[in-house]
């Protein structure tokens, strides 16, 4: 009896309440649905252009939205006035995405409105994205990747702003593919042209030189014209940055005017380390080239962080400059005076009767500062000393290497450096404990034939790869010394 009463009471209560709840549900379900409908409709019209007061149709089913954070798509009947997207952005509270509407006026291809429907991010931080000040700024913006960098972020909510930007990019890309696009922000070509114009604001035309310049660093060369007068030369060139292995990792434009001065520099692309490369991508760095005379590149200041990148840029610019002076202008480079650094003589085991610079008679090489011919008292050539340079971690490294007439290298000595070579001790593959100028690694290059050394393909030191160089990306000392050795083989005739 007790059980029956328990079961009956419980069942009866549940039944009664369920019926009551059900009745009230029937009373309110319509209104609740109407509210949702109204909220969405109001939102849709809020983001549609003010001139539009028609009905928006849902087109979500027409598209495959599985790959993007796009929830719904609406447009007017003829699909030529307005499109509204409902999309998700992942903010700080990544578990609960922000849901928003963005309207696009198809006649002007601008944003007609932006409205956040749901936002669960923290109060005082990401929640501020729902502030009208943030939402209203979108109205009137031209379409483009992240709306052309015009968005002011939400203070204290980098993640929220970032999430919204990333989501907007997806929506805009979707819009461009499905609704014809229109202005999509600057194209690659436009960005490049803008850079060229920055360097030569007075130019009326950039005439591309069709014959490829015979130089590894130079990709393209333009004669810069103002009307029919040539006002300068523009080089599109490439070089190796400080920290990217393999391939072309930076592309830049540099201009030279008819007075042998630089007119500007613009980095178009660099795969170098973010944070280090930023300084060099900025216009302020490019503008610091303005008015610098050719050969005075050392006066262009690099950044403290990323000095190796700066050195690599300058090395590449130097190469372009040398090509320009020697091959285009047909002039001689200002090369250093003979034996300006007396210590270079130590690179050769014998003391010679005369040291004569023969570099001016030979081809230019970016790694070489000077070449000396050594003769004994009988005026017989006994060897050569190459005075070279390379980009190091702490700035330019200057070195000298002696090579005799039998193509044997003598000493490799470091004349100038500012390296923190002892850092390399922490790395397994280096066991020496000397400071840089006396490093055992340098012995690799000494007292062997040029050909043997080149064949040996000496590797850089891990942990000091900016200094010693990385074989894959052709930089540092390896590259500079090997350039010298190859130069010796082809120019000084020692190779035959």
């Amino acid at each position, binding site marked *: 009896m007790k059980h029956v009463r328990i*079961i009956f009471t419980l069942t009866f209560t*549940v*039944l009664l309440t369920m019926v009551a709840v059900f009745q009230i549900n029937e009373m309110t379900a319509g209104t609740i649905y109407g509210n949702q409908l109204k909220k969405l409709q109001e939102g849709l019209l809020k983001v549609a252009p003010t001139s539009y007061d028609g009905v928006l149709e849902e087109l979500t089913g027409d598209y495959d939205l599985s790959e993007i954070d796009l929830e719904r798509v609406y447009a007017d009947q003829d699909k030529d006035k307005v499109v509204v997207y409902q999309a998700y952005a992942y903010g700080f509270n990544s578990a609960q995405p922000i849901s928003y509407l963005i309207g696009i006026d198809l006649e002007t291809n601008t944003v007609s409105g932006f409205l956040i429907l749901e936002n669960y991010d923290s109060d005082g931080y990401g929640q501020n994205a729902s502030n009208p000040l943030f939402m209203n700024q979108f109205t009137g913006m031209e379409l483009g990747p992240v709306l052309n960098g015009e968005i002011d972020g939400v203070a204290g909510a980098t993640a929220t702003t970032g999430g919204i930007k990333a989501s907007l990019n997806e929506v805009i890309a979707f819009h461009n593919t499905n609704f014809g696009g229109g202005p999509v922000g600057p194209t690659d070509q436009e960005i490049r042209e803008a850079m060229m114009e920055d360097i030569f604001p007075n130019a009326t035309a950039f005439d591309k030189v069709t014959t490829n310049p015979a130089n590894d660093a130079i990709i393209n060369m333009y004669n810069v014209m103002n009307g029919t007068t040539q006002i300068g030369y523009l080089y599109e060139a490439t070089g190796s940055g400080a920290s990217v292995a393999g391939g072309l990792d930076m592309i830049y434009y540099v201009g030279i005017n008819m007075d042998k001065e630089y007119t500007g520099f613009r980095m178009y692309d660099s795969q170098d380390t973010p944070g280090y490369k930023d300084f060099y991508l900025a216009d302020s760095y490019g503008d610091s080239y303005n008015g610098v005379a050719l050969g005075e590149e050392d006066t262009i200041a690099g950044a403290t962080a990323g000095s190796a990148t700066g050195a690599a840029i300058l090395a590449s610019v130097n190469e372009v400059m040398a090509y320009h002076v020697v091959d285009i202008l047909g002039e001689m480079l200002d090369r250093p005076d003979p034996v300006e650094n007396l210590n270079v003589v130590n690179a050769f085991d014998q003391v010679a009767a005369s040291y004569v610079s023969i570099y001016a008679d030979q081809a230019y090489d970016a790694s070489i500062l000077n070449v000396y011919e050594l003769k004994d008292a009988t005026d017989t050539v006994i060897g050569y000393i190459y005075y070279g340079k390379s980009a190091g971690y702490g700035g330019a490294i200057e070195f000298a290497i002696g090579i005799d007439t039998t193509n044997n290298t003598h000493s490799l000595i470091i004349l100038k450096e500012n390296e923190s070579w002892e850092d390399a001790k922490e790395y397994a593959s280096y066991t020496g404990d000397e400071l840089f100028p006396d490093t055992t690694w340098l012995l690799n290059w000494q007292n062997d034939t040029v050909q043997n050394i080149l064949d040996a393909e000496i590797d850089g030191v891990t942990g000091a790869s900016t200094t010693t160089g990385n074989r894959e990306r052709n930089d540092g000392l390896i590259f500079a010394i090997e350039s010298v050795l190859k130069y010796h083989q082809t120019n000084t005739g020692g190779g035959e």
Partner: protein
Amino acid sequence: MQVVIILAVALSLILAVILSFASSVLEVEEDPRLQDIIDMLPNANCGACGNPGCKGMAEAILREDAKLSQCKPGDQDMREAIAEYLAETPNESGEFTKTKM
């Protein structure tokens, strides 16, 4: 509507049958005063007294392990009522439990 009724009946029947039979099958001997004290407590099961619920509090009172004032929702009347009850009612072996106000 029919679905709701069927669902409600089915669900509550299942639960009611399980619960009512379980309550007799799984019954455990307890101090008879326990249930009386539970009935006198506010039964908010808020845990504010530091004991696991009002039942836990009642057990603690019988163990002389809790002060009546630990019960935050309880008022003066409740404290007096429990003290009075414990002063009058011994356990099965005739021992009285001291109350801590």
